[in-house]
C-alpha cells in the first residue's frame, strides 16, 4: 500500500477534477431524465416558501424587517440541507446496483464518484434556490443590499450544501440501502434545521438551546445570507460559516472517500 500511496496522490491531483466532471455530467443527465423527480423536488421548496409566508407570516414577530425577508434566506438553507441528503441516497443506490464496482475497478480518481455526485447536487441546489428567490420576489421579498450580496447569497447556500453533502456521503457509503440513507439523514438534518434561526429568531428559545442554536453552522449561514440580502454587516457570520464549511469538509471528505474505497 505504501508503494501505491504516491501513485494514488498523483492520480488524484491529475484526474480528480476531470473525473468528477464526468460523473457530474452523468448525474445531471440522470436528473434531467427523471422529470417527475425534478418537478416534485422543486415544487416542495416553493410550497414551503408559500406555506410559511402565509401561515406563519402573521404570527412570528421579526422586528423591523418583513417576515418574508426574514424567512426566505432561512428557507433557502433548509432546502439546501434537504437537498444534500440526496448525495447519500444516490451513493447508496450506486453501491446497491453494483455500479460502484465498475467505478472502483477503473483507473479513475478515488474521490471522483462522490465529488461528481456532490457537484450535481450543488447544481440542483443552485437551480432550486434561484427559482425560490423568484417565487419569493413575486410575494414581496426584496434585496436591500448590494449587487454583490445578491450574487453571494445563493452561492453561500451552495457552499453550505457542499459541506453537508460530504456528511451525507459518509452515511450513504456506510448503509446498505438508499432508503436507510434517506431516513438516517433526517436524524441529523431535523435538529439542525429547527435548532437554528431558520424559522424563528433564536432569542425566543430557552437559554441552553440558544447557545447551541447561535453557534450552529445553519444559524451562522442563515445570518450571513440574511445580512447579504438585507444589506447589513455580514462579516462575522460569513467568517463563521466559512470556518464551518472548511471544518466539515476537512473531517468528512477524507472519511467519505475512505468509506467509498473500502465498501465491500
Amino acid at each position, binding site marked *: 500500500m505504501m508503494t501505491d500511496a504516491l501513485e494514488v496522490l498523483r492520480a488524484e491531483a491529475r484526474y480528480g477534477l476531470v473525473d468528477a466532471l464526468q460523473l457530474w455530467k452523468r448525474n445531471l443527465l440522470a436528473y434531467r431524465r427523471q422529470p417527475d423527480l425534478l418537478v416534485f423536488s422543486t415544487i416542495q421548496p416553493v410550497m414551503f416558501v408559500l406555506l410559511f409566508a402565509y401561515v406563519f407570516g402573521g404570527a412570528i414577530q421579526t422586528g423591523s424587517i418583513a417576515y418574508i425577508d426574514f424567512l426566505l434566506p432561512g428557507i433557502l438553507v433548509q432546502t439546501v440541507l434537504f437537498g444534500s441528503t440526496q448525495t447519500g441516497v444516490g451513493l447508496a443506490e450506486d453501491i446497491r446496483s453494483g455500479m460502484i464496482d465498475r*467505478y472502483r475497478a477503473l483507473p479513475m480518481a478515488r474521490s471522483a464518484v462522490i465529488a461528481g455526485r456532490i457537484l450535481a447536487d450543488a447544481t440542483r441546489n443552485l437551480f432550486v434556490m434561484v427559482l425560490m428567490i423568484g417565487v419569493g420576489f413575486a410575494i414581496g421579498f426584496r434585496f436591500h443590499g448590494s449587487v454583490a450580496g445578491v450574487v453571494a447569497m445563493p452561492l453561500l447556500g451552495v457552499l453550505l450544501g457542499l459541506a453537508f453533502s460530504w456528511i451525507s456521503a459518509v452515511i450513504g457509503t456506510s448503509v446498505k440501502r438508499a432508503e436507510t440513507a434517506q431516513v438516517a439523514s433526517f436524524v441529523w438534518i431535523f435538529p439542525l434545521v429547527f435548532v437554528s434561526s431558520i424559522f424563528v429568531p433564536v432569542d425566543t428559545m430557552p437559554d441552553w438551546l440558544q447557545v447551541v442554536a447561535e453557534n450552529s453552522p445553519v444559524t451562522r449561514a442563515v445570518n450571513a445570507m440574511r445580512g447579504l440580502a438585507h444589506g447589513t454587516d455580514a462579516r462575522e457570520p460569513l467568517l463563521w460559516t466559512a470556518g464551518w464549511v472548511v471544518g466539515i469538509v476537512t473531517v468528512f471528505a477524507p472519511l467519505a472517500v475512505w468509506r467509498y474505497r473500502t465498501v465491500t
Partner: protein
Amino acid sequence: MQAARQADPPVVVRGIRKSFGDVQALDGVSLTIEAGSVLGLLGPNGAGKTTLVRILTTLLDPDGGSAAVAGFDVQRQKTQVRPRIGLAGQSAAVDGTLTGRENLEMVARLYHMPRRDAAARADALLRRFDLLEAAERQAGVYSGGMRRRLDLAASLVADPQVLFLDEPTTGLDPHGRLEMWAVIRELASAGATVLLTTQYLEEADQLADTIVVIDHGKVIAQGTAAELKSRTGGEFLTVRVSDLAMLDGARRVLAAAGDGEPVVDAAAGAVSVAVSNGAARLAGVVRDLDAAAVAIADVGLRQPTLDEVFLSLTGHRAASDDAAPPGRPRRGRRRA
C-alpha cells in the same frame, strides 16, 4: 516500481485467503492463467468465486497470500493493475438512466481517452455487440441479455490485458446464454486472457481451456474438462428402466457392478454408476438385470458429465441443482 515482466503469466494467484467474520470465503486459493487462455472458475453458490474476482480486480484486499495481474501486485500496485483489466461483475453494472452509448462513452472518458477516441470506441463496441440499434435508448429499458452485452462491452473499452467475467450468463434465457457464449468464444479466439466464473458445468466445458473447481473457498480440482472427467475413473454406465417400480432393483445391481455409489435420477427413471472397464462389464450387468427381473428401456456407456465429476470430487452435488431462485439474495448467506 517493478515493471511488468512480459514472460510471467498474466494472472498468478498464490495462497489467497479472505474471511468475512467467521465465514472463510477463500482458504488458500492458488491458480495461474496463461496468456491467451480462458480459465473457468467453477463452483456452487458461496464457493468464493466473486470474492476471488473482487480481489483480483483490486476491489477487495485479501487477508493473506498474494496475487499478480498483468505483472502487478493487486494489493500494492492497484493503480497499475486497473488500467490493464476489464471487469464484468455478477450484476451488470450499467447506468440505467444513461443510453447505451453514453454508458460506454463515460467509461472510456474515465479511462481518460480523449473525447473523440471515446466516441469512436463506444461506436465500435456497440456495433460489435449488436447494440447499435438500441444505442440511443436508456439502458434501463434494455433486456437482460442486452444489459449483459453492454456491461461486457464496457469492460472491453480499454482493451484490457485480462478480462474478468463473473457469472456472465446467470439470469439469461437460453437464447441470451448462447449469444453470450458466442461473444466469449469470439473474445477467446481473438487471444484474450479471461477468467470466467460459472455455476454451470456445461458452460465451463464449453468456454474454458482449463477449469478450476472451487468449493468452500478451496481449489478441489483443476485441469482440462477431459482431465477432470477422467478423474472420476472412466465411464458411466446408465440404465433406464421401463417401470419406475424397478428403479431400486436396478440400483442394487449397479451398486454391485460399479466402482461407487450409483446415482438415481428418479425423474428420468435412470440409474448411473462409474465403471472402470465399462465395455467388459456391460454384458454382465445386462445379465444381472435380467436375473433380477428389471425390464430395461435403455442401457449404455457414456463419458461422465461435469456434474458427476463434481459429485465425485466433493461428495455433494453442484449447487446448480438447488440454485437460489432468481431474486433471492445470495450475498451473506451461510453455507452448511
